[in-house]
């Protein structure tokens, strides 16, 4: 359950909208069911009061929307940012992707978001109602009722939450949290410890499911290119479908490389992948390597910080030393 209620956010949004501080509000909109929340741009008090939600299904990170929405907006946009969203927000500012002056950012606390796939695995088909309270209570049309501990159905990124701290905001609602010592690299380490054949099989299996729908890229706050290399016939890597294993790998290697040092590990790619490919394990591999090769670096922690791939020291690790002490 989220500590901050929908009503507080609605009240805030309405007052800022009515006093003219902002011209519109980026928020989560009620869906058809209790879990299919959609990001939406609210422009009136009525819309907000009717459809605004904030519950355990508000995973969407709004930072990226600011790139396009701030250009069009007449005034400031109110955006609600969970702690992890603020890192993406900062990274986009570092890259000059939107005008900070056109945003009114409210930091809101987050207790972790629920993964509907995990709920479905427990509750089965025909979910008719989900109540997010102390427990997540799920009813189905088949008459089943499940009381689920929210901790058991968290999104992967929330299980490994790296920070409850907001690194950028104009106003903070609720209490400020701390940066957390997470175990987010454990899974990467587990893969690293596999034999090459096991690991090869693992990735082969995962990446073979890719349908190149580009959801990972299109949701990624680090992927804001005007023209993506994968859409550009002149880039040499453009393709609309993964024709074979090579193209599956290439897409994900290049994508991870392009966001390396800029990826804040917000986890949106894995959250939206329709094929449930653990894409965060590619991004985290780069983050883990960067931390161990060049010192810890959290993209988005500070506006204007120099990303590791546009930086160097004269005594950096040599590529030949990457595998030293990492036996086969």
């Amino acid at each position: 359950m989220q500590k901050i209620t929908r009503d507080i956010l609605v009240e805030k949004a309405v007052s800022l909208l009515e006093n003219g501080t902002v011209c519109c509000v980026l928020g989560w909109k009620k869906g058809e069911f209790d879990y299919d929340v959609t990001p939406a741009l609210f422009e009136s008090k009525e819309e907000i009061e009717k459809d605004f939600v904030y519950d355990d299904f508000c995973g969407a990170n709004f930072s990226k929307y600011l790139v396009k929405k701030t250009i069009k907006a007449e005034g400031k946009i109110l955006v609600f940012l969970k702690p992890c969203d603020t890192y993406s927000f900062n990274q986009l500012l570092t890259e000059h992707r939107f005008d900070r002056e056109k945003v009114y950012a409210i930091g809101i606390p987050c207790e972790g978001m629920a993964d509907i796939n995990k709920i479905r695995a427990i509750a089965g088909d025909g979910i008719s109602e989900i109540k997010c309270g102390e427990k997540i209570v799920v009813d189905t049309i088949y008459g089943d009722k499940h009381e689920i501990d929210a901790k058991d159905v968290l999104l992967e990124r929330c299980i490994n939450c790296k920070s409850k701290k907001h690194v950028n905001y104009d106003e903070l609602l609720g209490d400020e949290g701390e940066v957390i010592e997470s175990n987010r690299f454990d899974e990467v380490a587990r893969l690293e410890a596999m034999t090459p054949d096991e690991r090869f099989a693992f990735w082969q299996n995962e990446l073979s499911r890719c349908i190149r729908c580009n959801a990972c890229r299109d949701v990624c706050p680090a992927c804001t290119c005007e023209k993506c290399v994968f859409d550009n016939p002149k880039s040499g890597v453009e393709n609309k479908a993964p024709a074979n294993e090579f193209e599956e790998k290439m897409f994900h290697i290049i994508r991870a490389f392009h966001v390396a040092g800029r990826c804040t590990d917000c986890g949106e790619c894995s959250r939206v992948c329709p094929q449930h490919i653990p894409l965060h394990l590619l991004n985290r591999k780069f983050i883990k390597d960067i931390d161990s090769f060049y010192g810890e670096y959290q993209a988005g922690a500070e506006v204007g910080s120099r990303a590791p791939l546009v930086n160097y020291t004269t005594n950096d690790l040599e590529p030949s030393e990457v595998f030293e002490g990492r036996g086969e």
Partner: protein
Amino acid sequence: MQRIGVFVCWCGSNIAGTVDVVAVAEALKKEPGVVFSANYQYMCSQAGQDLIKNAIKEHNLTGIVVCSCSPRMHEATFRKTAAAAGLNPYMVEIANIREQCSWVHKEMPIGTEKAIILGKAAVAKVNLNTPLVPGESPVTKRALVIGGGIAGIQTALDIADAGFEVDIVEKKPTIGGKMAQLDKTFPTLDCAACILTPKMVDVAQNEKIRIFSYSEVTDVKGFVGNFDVTIKKKARYVKEELCTGCGACTEKCPMKKVPNDFNLNMDTKRAIYIPFAQAVPKVATIDPDYCNMLKNGKCGVCSKVCAAGAIDYTQKDEFIEEKYGAIVVATGFNPISMDKFDEFAYNQSKDVITSLEFERLTNAAGPTAGKLLRPSDHKHPEKIVFVQCVGSRCDACNEKGKEYCSKICCMYTAKHAMLTRDKYPDTEVYVFYIDVRTPGKNFDEFYRRAVEEYGVHYIKGMVGKVVPEGDKLIVQASDLLDNKQLKIEADLVVLAAAIEPDKSARPLATLLTASMDTNDFFTEAHPKLRPVESPTAGVFLSGACQGPKDIPETVAQAGAAASKVIGLLAKDKLTGNPCVAHSNEMMCNGCSSCERVCPYGAITYEDKEFRMPDRTTLMRRIAVVNPAVCQGCGCCTVACPSGAMDLKGFASEQIIAEVDAICK
């Protein structure tokens, strides 16, 4: 579609010995775009080049591939050949089938196969080549010289002499620099003032030269040919244009106890002062740290005595923005501080002095009016010990001094010793040295005269300690040649302090994006072949800011730097290397990744309005590469995630085409 000609060179038997050149030419004929193919014994010969020229004309070739030696050898040759036949020189690609094929592979079939593949890669690349035209940028025909010592003066005079405008920025109230403080100059012993001050006057009178004295450079923007420089004119509280330099104020100022830095604080001056009689500009300056009027508003004497009405207590620092085509750094040197050298008792005894202080003591315009008197009791010293290499040639681990040789000390010490003995034959002079280094015209002769004609005691060995005892200085030293310890009761000890770059050089280097070595000397573009240029285009080096130098060397380098500047300013336009980065503004995100990796600061950003396909307009931040500054490394092309940044001549598509051709 290109019309490509392939020219396979035999290089006598160098290539033809292990590569079947006929087979290569035949195989490449089948490649897409190739309409002509030939082989010849020596493509680089006149006949070979004529063959290429004729083929270009006859077959309307749009690009050529020469399969020959390394492009490092003859790329320029064949580009000229192409240009002579009316083909853009950048439509030429070389397949290196000699150094990287025929010379490293022994068997004909292997060499031939590889040569064909290398040829195919070059053909694949040429297919994607586009004619390149070097970018042009205008040149502002004015130079800036930073530093008004002999280096800066000479550079400015030489540039002005060629008809170009020059500005000198000097942080002190007068130009002249270190040379103005010297007495005589080695090895000819002419008086420094006699040869320097006429040059200073020349500078003042030259219509092409402006002097910004008591001024500093605070900002530098732009690039070769087009620098925008901000100069801070510090408030001197005297209107330069009104001051006649009569000196009335400097005589009447009641504040008499201002340390006189021109005389290395061995005497005092007034709070309003003119550093020395021949100062240029000869204008008074008020030292705000001592002036009562400026400190607490009480006094105003100078203003009252100034007939010209030049005094202005309200003057403020003034910032001037100027454009320059070239910048010469001539920031010079200083002796290092002796604070860390306690063993020589520099801070304990007034009679332990540095060589530059000695210069002032022997200078007729100095604190003692040229009489050699001890600073402590103004007595004539009867025994003088000179110590060489104080802080020079130290171990790398020695934090006190410098590793390098300061170069000028051996000669000026010989000069000091000789002049002392000449003027005061009753004075005993000892010189302690590690080595005496005298490589220079008439240098060794000069040193030998000091020893042989003037009876200076040269002792190989280092002084261990100087202990003040009563009015004497006990110098403990070792004589390495006689292998004995010495104890000399001296009246005066003169330390040949190492020299180091002026402290203002480091921040200036940052402003100029010019590189420096670990000792803060500016680095040259090439230590042997481009010794007066900095790696930053348009920035030149003159004098001791680049390394220790004596006056003749400094003047020589000043002239060399001037000639480089003149060469630059003589051009109306600069043409650059056309193989530079270029950003496709339609794809650029303005994310700054490219800018951050650019070593030359060639990338800037601008907000540009775009007309979108749906007929709306959109303001977007985009990267702009300055082709005059870009050196074409291509680092930005990889930093750019969208691929908006590409490198002309080495475009991603071209490199990928080469990869494909090699792998197929």
